[in-house]
C-alpha cells in the first residue's frame, strides 16, 4: 500500500468496483477499500436484473447467472395473476461470483484492493477540501491521501454525510427489506413472481426470484413508514409459512433499498458519491445493480479526466452530475413520480387492474398497458409511463 493514490474508492460493490476499474483504465492509481471480510458477501440483494440493461454493460458469463428468466407473474391482492412475457426477460444473478469478478476486473487494470478496511474519517487539506481517508485495517489505523475520494459505501452513505451532503433517507423513501433463500419449494423457475398487496407488503412488494429448480430468493420490501407498525421480517415469516410450509430456509438477510427522489448533488471538491450511497437505485423497482455499474463507469471516467486536467474542483467534477442526469437521472425523476402514484393504489384498484389486463391478449399485456390501466385516473403520468418503460 502506498501513502498516496490518485483515487480512493470506498466500497467494493458493483458501483465501487466499476468506478475503480474505469479510473484505473484511464491510467490512475486507485485504492479500493471494502469494510467486510469478503467482496460480494453477504449478498444483500434479490439478484434480479433485466436482460436489456445488463447486456448494455456485460456479455453475461454463465457462472454469473443462477437462472434465466422468461417472464413475470404479477399477482394482485385477490390472487389473480397477470403473466408478462414480452420485453421482461432477465437473469437472477449469483452476486457472490458477479461481485468477485467485477473486483477481479478492477484488479486486472491495476486497482489495489483491501478488504476488512473500514474508512471512517475523511481527511481535509488546509483549504477545507477532501484530501484522503483514515481507515482501520486489522486493528491498525492508516491515513492515506488521494486526489479524489469516491464514496460507494452503499445505502448507509456515511461518507457522504461526513462530506457534508444530506444523504440520510426519509422513512417513506427507504424500502425495508428481508429476504430468505429457501429450498424445497415447488416453483416454475422460468418466471419471477411479484405480489402486490397491503396485507403482504404494504408500500412495496413481495418477490419470488428463482435461483434454480426448487430454490429461490423470497423476500419483500415495505415502506419504512409501514415497517414502523410491523417489521418486515414478520410479514415474510407469515408468507413463507402459509405459501411454502415445507420450505427450508438456507439464508436470511435484511437490508434497506433507497427508493428516493433523484439526488442532484453528487460531488464536492475532490469528492464524488455513487451507487446506493447516491440513491442511484430505481425508485419504482428498487433495482440498483445496472444503475450502479452505469453511474460507476461515468464517475470513474470523470474522476480520471479531472485529474488529467489537474482540476478536481466541485465545478469540474459536476461533469459527472450532468452526464448522470442525462444517462439515468431523467428516468429516475419520472420513476419516482410513478412510485408515488403507484404506492397510493388500494388493493381494490390493484384487483381491478389485474382483471382488466387479463382481458387483453398476451401481446398487449405489457408494463405500459398495466401502468396506464392502474393509473388511469392520473393521465398526466402517461408520458412518464411511456418514457420509463419504452426508453
Amino acid at each position, binding site marked *: 500500500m502506498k501513502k498516496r493514490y490518485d483515487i480512493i474508492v470506498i466500497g467494493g460493490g458493483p458501483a465501487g468496483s466499476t468506478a475503480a476499474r474505469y479510473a484505473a483504465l484511464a491510467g490512475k492509481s486507485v485504492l479500493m477499500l471494502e469494510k467486510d471480510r469478503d467482496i460480494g458477501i453477504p449478498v444483500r440483494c434479490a439478484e434480479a436484473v433485466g436482460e436489456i440493461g445488463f447486456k448494455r454493460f456485460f456479455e453475461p458469463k454463465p457462472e454469473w447467472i443462477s437462472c434465466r428468466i422468461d417472464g413475470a407473474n404479477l399477482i394482485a391482492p385477490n390472487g389473480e395473476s397477470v403473466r408478462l412475457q414480452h420485453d421482461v426477460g432477465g437473469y437472477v444473478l449469483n452476486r457472490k461470483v458477479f461481485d468477485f469478478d467485477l473486483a477481479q476486473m478492477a484488479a486486472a487494470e491495476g486497482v489495489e484492493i483491501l478488504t476488512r478496511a473500514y474508512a471512517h474519517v475523511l481527511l481535509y487539506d488546509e483549504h477545507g477540501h477532501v484530501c484522503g481517508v483514515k481507515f482501520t485495517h486489522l486493528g491498525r489505523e492508516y491515513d492515506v491521501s488521494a486526489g479524489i475520494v469516491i464514496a460507494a459505501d452503499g445505502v448507509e452513505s456515511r461518507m457522504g454525510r461526513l462530506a457534508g451532503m444530506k444523504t440520510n433517507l426519509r422513512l417513506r423513501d*427507504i424500502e425495508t427489506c428481508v429476504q430468505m433463500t429457501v429450498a424445497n419449494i415447488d416453483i416454475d423457475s422460468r418466471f419471477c413472481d411479484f405480489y402486490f398487496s397491503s396485507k403482504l407488503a404494504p408500500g412495496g412488494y413481495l418477490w419470488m426470484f428463482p435461483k434454480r429448480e426448487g430454490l429461490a430468493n423470497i423476500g419483500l420490501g415495505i415502506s419504512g413508514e409501514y415497517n414502523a407498525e410491523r417489521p418486515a*421480517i414478520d410479514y415474510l415469516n407469515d408468507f413463507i409459512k402459509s405459501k411454502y410450509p415445507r420450505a427450508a430456509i438456507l439464508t436470511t438477510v435484511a437490508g434497506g433499498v433507497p427508493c428516493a427522489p433523484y439526488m442532484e448533488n453528487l460531488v464536492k471538491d475532490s469528492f464524488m458519491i455513487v451507487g446506493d450511497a447516491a440513491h442511484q437505485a430505481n425508485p419504482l423497482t428498487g433495482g440498483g445493480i445496472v444503475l450502479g455499474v452505469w453511474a460507476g463507469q461515468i464517475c470513474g471516467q470523470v474522476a480520471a479526466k479531472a485529474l488529467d486536467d489537474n482540476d478536481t474542483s466541485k465545478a469540474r467534477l459536476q461533469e459527472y452530475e450532468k452526464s448522470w442526469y442525462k444517462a439515468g437521472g431523467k428516468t429516475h425523476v419520472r420513476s419516482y413520480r410513478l412510485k408515488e402514484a403507484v404506492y397510493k393504489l388500494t388493493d381494490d384498484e390493484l384487483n381491478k387492474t389485474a382483471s382488466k389486463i387479463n382481458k387483453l391478449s398476451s401481446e398487449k399485456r405489457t408494463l405500459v398497458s398495466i401502468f396506464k390501466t392502474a393509473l388511469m385516473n392520473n393521465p398526466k403520468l402517461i408520458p412518464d409511463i411511456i418514457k420509463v418503460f419504452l426508453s
Partner: protein
Amino acid sequence: MIKVREELCDFCGTCVSVCPHDALELFESRLVVDEKKCTLCMMCEKVCPVNAIWEDPK
C-alpha cells in the same frame, strides 16, 4: 438510550441510512451509537427490518 438486540441484528445498516443526526455507525460489524448525537428520535427503531433496536428508558 438506544439498545441493539445483538442476537437479532443483521448489521444491514438500514438504521444508519435514516439516522437524521448521524449518530449511528456500523463499525466492523457492530452497531455503535454516539449518545452525544442521538436525540432518541427512534427513526432507527421504526425502520429496522428485524426489530433489533429498542429504547432502554434507563
